[in-house]
């Protein structure tokens, strides 16, 4: 799994000098997103990052962060998904540039797709049929990878869960406030959450914010978020 890094106090040194891409990576480190996610968000190649992470570690301006179980599970799921997508992209890229072997696509069991109209077989005058276009390659599904459907975290469900746990409304609301004190304010605002009423709903699809809220609920209230707070999203 890709590690999660956090900045160290040494990173606050005004005398710190970094290269442009190193600053971009350094300033993206939030203690929540994995290294792979930051790399993806900044559009950097693995080659770029092969140099940047070791240099930031060597300078002592970042360090690997200890994760709670919930944070690990969330980060592992993200790394797994990104890794799968990356491998698949590399594989398809290799396939496109590889040798054109007629009929090879059909050699993968269960990989054939229904022919589209532009792939329809062409009938020759002698009656034989030649495929017009080779069917597109479709790899077998990776177990557990599933379709790319992000889950949304329902803030209303999270707040209801907390409110239900406390004997009175004020205690529940203060517990919710305690959760959000420990969530990065800028991350909330980046997601358009400038204020929050206890009865309103917000669907959170930003993975970093989901992880931050989940971790804060766990660390500050000792509660684990159940499946009921999640909904399938886009």
């Amino acid at each position: 799994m890709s590690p999660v890094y956090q900045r160290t106090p040494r990173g606050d040194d005004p005398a710190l000098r970094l290269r442009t891409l190193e600053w971009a990576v350094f300033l993206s480190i939030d203690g929540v997103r994995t290294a792979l996610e930051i790399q993806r968000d900044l559009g950097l190649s693995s080659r770029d990052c092969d140099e940047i992470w070791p240099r930031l570690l060597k300078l002592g301006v970042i360090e690997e962060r200890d994760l709670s179980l919930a944070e690990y599970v969330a980060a592992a799921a993200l790394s797994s998904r990104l890794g799968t997508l990356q491998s698949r992209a590399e594989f398809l890229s290799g396939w496109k540039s590889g040798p054109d072997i007629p009929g090879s696509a059909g050699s993968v069991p269960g990989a054939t797709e229904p022919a589209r109209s532009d792939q329809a077989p062409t009938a020759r005058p002698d009656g034989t049929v030649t495929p017009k276009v080779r069917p597109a390659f479709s790899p077998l599904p990776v177990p557990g990878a599933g379709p790319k459907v992000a889950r949304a975290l329902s803030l209303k469900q999270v707040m209801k869960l907390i409110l239900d746990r406390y004997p009175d409304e004020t205690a529940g609301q203060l517990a919710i406030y305690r959760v959000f004190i420990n969530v990065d304010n800028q991350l909330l605002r980046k997601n358009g959450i400038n204020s929050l009423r206890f009865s309103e709903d917000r669907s959170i699809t930003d993975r970093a914010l989901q992880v931050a809220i989940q971790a804060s609920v766990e660390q500050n209230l000792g509660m684990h978020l159940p499946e009921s707070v999640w909904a399938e999203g886009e």
Partner: protein
Amino acid sequence: MDPAHFSIFRDITLEYFAKLAPDESPPALEEAFIQFAAPVLLDYASVVGISGEYEGCLYLTTTRPLLRRLLELQGEGEISERTIEDMCRELSNVLSGNATRAFGAQWKISVPRTLRREDFAALLLPPSTFTIPIRWASNEAFLVIGLQPAATSAPSILE
């Protein structure tokens, strides 16, 4: 923050208004919310710093018309900038006394401060605040708690 202590603080603060005007409808609490953007600030603010497990402040922010109404209820003949600020200072002292009564055992309570709108820019408030709207005598006010983890606090407003 102990919810029971907070409830005491909120209730005795509201009582102050109710006692001043027993013939008027008592202050009504509206639905609380958490503010992540700029904290709510009206014309004046009575601020008390607190520190303990978390660090931050409690404040009551009010409008000029509300302070005028309080002066009228106290029988003040002169309604001016000076007396309005005096009224705001009195609210700050009330707030500080209430905070000490409710939270004094667990939290360090600072000397109260009274701020006008033009002073707000210099006020370092925690980024996330718990805000309770209060409606009283056709005026609005907000009772606000702003806390942040002590280890990551910006320079304290207690100083």
